[in-house]
C-alpha cells in the first residue's frame, strides 16, 4: 500500500484513501468538435504509459475529495512529488536530483 501526500490536506496518508485517476495534464480540448478523429482519439485513448517518472492524477476520495497531480516513478512506485490540480508540472530532473 503506497503512502501518498495530499497537497490539499498536506498530510501523507495510505493509498486506501485515494483513487488513481490516470495520466495527468491531458486537458479536455476547448472545442472538441473542431478536432479531427485522430486528434480526438489521442485525447481519449493515447497514453504515455511512462516507464519511470509518470505524471498522474489521484483523488483523495476518502478524504478531502480533491483531485491532484503526482509525479511517481513507475519502476519503484515512489512518489517524487504531488501538487495541486492546475499547477505547472514540476520538472523531473530537478526532483530526481533532489532525491
Amino acid at each position, binding site marked *: *500500500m*503506497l503512502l501518498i501526500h495530499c497537497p490539499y490536506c498536506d498530510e501523507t496518508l495510505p*493509498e*486506501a484513501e485515494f*483513487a*488513481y485517476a*490516470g*495520466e495527468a495534464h491531458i486537458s479536455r480540448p476547448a472545442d472538441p468538435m473542431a478536432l479531427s*478523429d*485522430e486528434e480526438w*482519439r*489521442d485525447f*481519449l*485513448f*493515447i*497514453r*504515455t*504509459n*511512462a*516507464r519511470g517518472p*509518470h505524471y*498522474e492524477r489521484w483523488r483523495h476520495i476518502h478524504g478531502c475529495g480533491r483531485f491532484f497531480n503526482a509525479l*511517481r516513478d*513507475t*519502476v*519503484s*512506485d515512489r512518489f517524487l512529488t504531488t501538487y495541486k490540480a492546475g499547477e505547472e508540472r514540476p520538472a523531473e530532473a530537478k526532483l530526481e536530483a533532489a532525491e
Partner: protein
Amino acid sequence: MQRFSAMSLLKNALSGHKNWREQWPDSQPKAEYDVVIVGAGGHGLGAAYYLAKEHGITNVAVIDKGWLGGGNTGRNTTIIRSNYLYDESARLYDHALDLWENLSQELNYNVMYSKRGVMMLAHNVHDVQSFQRHIHANRLNGVDNRWLSKEEAKAFCPPLNISPDARYPVMGAALQMRAGTARHDAVAWGYARAAAARGVDIIQNCPVIAIRRGPDGAVQGVDTAKGFIKAKKVAVSAAGHTSVVMDSAGVRMPLESFPLQALVSEPVKPIFPCVVMSNTVHAYISQSDKGELVIGSGTDQYTSYSQRGGLPLIEHTVAAICEVFPIFNRMRMLRKWGGIVDVTPDRSAIVGKTPVKGLYVNCGWGTGGFKATPGAAHTLAWTVAKDEPHPINAPFTLERFTTGRLIDEAAAAAVAH
C-alpha cells in the same frame, strides 16, 4: 531437434540422461534478419515458430531484454478459455483453443493442456443475464459454453459454497468444458525449441534500445544492447513494455500497464477439479498438477512496472476465495508474485499492422494473454509474413480507437445497475 517420447526418455534414462542436448541454442545476433520479434514470451516465440513453419520465413530473431518466457508467460494463472462474448473475440480465442488442443503434439513438447473445464460463477441477476448472453452467443458461434444451476455447479466443483446465506450467493454458472489450463513455462520452451529447430535465433538478455526508422519512415531494424540489428520487419510483442518500445518508433499507444498479482497455496492432494472464476467477488482459482491452488488477483489501481503490487489486493483476493470456498480458510499461501499487464481502453488486444511500414504490434492482452498465445502468435505470423491482416485478427486493429469500432468485452460485462 532431438525427438521427445517415452522411448527417448527411457533410452536416455538408461544412459544417465547424459545425451540430452540443449533445447535451444543461446544465439548471438546476426547483422540482419528478415524479421525481428521483440519479446520472447509465448506470443513472440510462437509467432517466430509459425513464421518459420507456415510461411517459410526462417531468418528470424526473437530478442528479449531478459530470459525467454520470463514475463507474463511465466507469471500468469494459466487459464485457457474461449467463451468470450463478441464474435471477434470468440473467433480469436477459439482459434487459439483449436491450436491448444494439438499443441503438445505439434511442438513435440508436453504443454499439459488440461481440459478440465472453466466455470464462471453468477452471483446476481445481472451476472445471470450476462452469462446467458455469452452462452447464447457462444452457441451460435460454435463455441462450447453452457449454463449450470447452482446445484450442478456444486456437483462439478464440490468445494463450492452454494449456501443462500453467502454475502454473494451463487445463482448458477457458465461452464466451458473444453477450457482449462496449460503449463505456462512449457509453452514458451516448446515454442522456443521448435522455432530454434527451424532456424530461428533466440537472443536473450538483449534489451531493445530503439526501433530505427529510415528517411521514408519505414522500419530499418532495432538498436539493441548488442548493437544494431537490421530488419525490414519488426514485430513488437512486449506486453507491459510495449508502450516504451513502440514509443521509440514514434508510435504512441492506447495502453496502460498495471501490476497484476497471483498466488499459490501449499500443495495438497487433488481437491479442486476445474477452474472457477468469479468476476463479482474477483476470484480465479484452479489446482495445479503439483497440487498448489493457483489463484489470480485483480490489478492494482495505478500503472506500474515494479512487478510488486500491494498487500490489500492480495487480502481481498484470498478473502474472495475463502468466501466462495470456505474449506480453504486453513490452507496456507506459499508465494505471490506480480506481472505487468498492458491494458487497452476496450480491454481487447491489438494485433496487426501499425502506421509505420514494416512495424507490427501484438499487445493489449491485459489479464487474458496466456490463453490467446497460439492464436495470437499464429495470426501475427500471418500478418507479418503477408503484410496484411489475418481474417481473425483483422478486427483487432489500432484504427478502431479512431473509428470507435471497439470490441468492448469489459463494457459488455457491464456493471450492476
